[in-house]
């Protein structure tokens, strides 16, 4: 029975090809959006984690105080805090080179009262007692500031979330377009196969059987089309996303550069989910529109 059923509705090659083509394009767009969303949220999480492992102490120069001594004291306080792995005082030159991109090389900033920085690396457990450190700084060095990057992280996570939701909305829209395309194609196929449907009715098929025959056919066509689109999206994602991440990896050190590991198994899985969801949507949309059309045709 199952060997026969998919062929019960004859295939109109031209119409079938254009339907599969539309599904391929839609799957390509949706899969790319899904992969981008997954990769984006992973990158944002990486950045967030990297930033969260580091805090910075800024010590401002004050007239009448020895800046070098203050900086050393701040570093010592940081080292004494539980959960802190290391605290490194950036030298005057290192601080200047950090400011260079903003002020330019030509300007001699040596005379400006620039703050000095202490880079504090936190332990893996991330349970550093930053509140305790902050309290000590307030009493001992009120003109030192502790920056835990939480503002950065929040805005980074926030914009990543907006982009991810945007990509998700795109997937939903493409899904809607696929449903409409399937309904439209099913309507055409039903009209083209009126005599076949009539015969199926005469030999005792009920509407459910006929709707299922169409659903099988469109699910198969949908799967064929969206698989091609999904594959293309996977290739494009494998080519583009590593490039984006390589830029990011170049800013920091480390980071692997092989395509698959950068698109990520979750990215590939999201593409697969989109492909399967589109095929299922084709089958369901076809089933419901055939059922509805058969019911309506009997009412007249």
């Amino acid at each position, binding site marked *: *029975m199952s*060997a*026969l059923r998919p062929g019960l509705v004859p295939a109109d090659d031209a119409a079938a090809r254009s339907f599969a083509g539309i599904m391929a394009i839609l799957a390509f767009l949706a899969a790319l959006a899904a992969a981008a969303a997954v990769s984006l949220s992973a990158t944002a999480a990486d950045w967030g984690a990297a930033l969260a492992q580091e805090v910075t102490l800024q010590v401002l120069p004050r007239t009448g105080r020895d800046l070098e001594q203050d900086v050393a004291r701040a570093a010592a306080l940081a080292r004494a805090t539980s959960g802190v792995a290391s605290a490194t005082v950036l030298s005057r030159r290192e601080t200047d080179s950090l400011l260079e991109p903003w002020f330019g090389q030509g300007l001699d900033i040596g005379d400006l009262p620039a703050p000095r920085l202490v880079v504090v690396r936190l332990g893996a457990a991330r349970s550093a007692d930053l509140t305790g450190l902050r309290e000590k700084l307030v009493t001992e060095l009120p003109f030192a500031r502790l920056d835990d990057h939480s503002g950065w992280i929040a805005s980074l996570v926030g914009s990543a979330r907006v982009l991810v939701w945007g990509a998700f909305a795109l997937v939903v829209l493409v899904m809607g377009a696929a449903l409409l395309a399937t309904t439209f194609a099913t309507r055409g196929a039903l009209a083209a196969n009126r005599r076949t449907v009539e015969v199926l009715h*005469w*030999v*005792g098929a*009920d509407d459910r059987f006929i709707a299922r025959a169409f659903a099988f056919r469109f699910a198969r066509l949908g799967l064929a089309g969206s698989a091609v689109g999904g594959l293309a999206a996977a290739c494009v994602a494998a080519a583009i996303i590593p490039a984006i991440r390589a830029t990011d990896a170049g800013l920091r050190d480390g980071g692997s550069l092989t395509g698959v590991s950068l698109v990520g198994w979750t990215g590939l899985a999201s593409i697969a989910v989109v492909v399967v969801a589109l095929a299922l949507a084709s089958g369901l949309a076809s089933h419901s529109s055939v059922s509805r059309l058969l019911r309506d045709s009997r009412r007249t």
Partner: protein
Amino acid sequence: MNAVVVGEPVVAFDGVGMRFGRGPEILRDVSFAIEPRSFQFLTGPSGAGKTTLLRLVLAALRPTRGHIRLFGQGASRISGGALTDVRRRTGIVFQDFRLLDHLSVYQNVALPLVVRGRDEAGYRAEVIELLQWVGLGGQLDRLPPILSGGEKQRVAIARALIARPELILADEPTGNVDPHLAERLLHLFIELNRLGTSVVIATHDLALMDQVEARRLILSDGLLFVDEGAS
């Protein structure tokens, strides 16, 4: 619902009239009954309305007036699942065959069983046996477009019989075959009737009708006359 009520005709027409649009009345006042296990010919000149009458029996057309009862139910009220049920109890041989051109001979004949959800392992031998009986045992895998008219007709007959319906409606089932094969096919219908199926054969082939003593429903000028036959 599946059992025929004792004494209730399989098909009953009461004062049925039929016209297409604003055209002439093809059937004017037709009343008759088809009893369970009965055998009859439906005859009349070409254009008399034989095919139209059969389509009314299939509930494929609604009469312009009168009442039709099928298997004990008012035809005008049959819909959905009940309509499927009526169609499963009725086998049809269309005058123009209506085979599915993209399916093989074997698949066409198996179709009524496929749509009933039957398993191929259970019916394969049965389908092949019936096709052998109608002389198509060697053509199982051929497609209808390359069959001769008579071969198509035999595929259509086999498809109508395969599910052992309670009522067979055959529209000119021997119109495309030689007299010898016509006789052989006629005996297939007679055999089926012996097993309990009601048979209606529409034909204007007098030689065919003369081969069996049977009731004749004669359509003429929109009216139906019944010749009960000798027995």
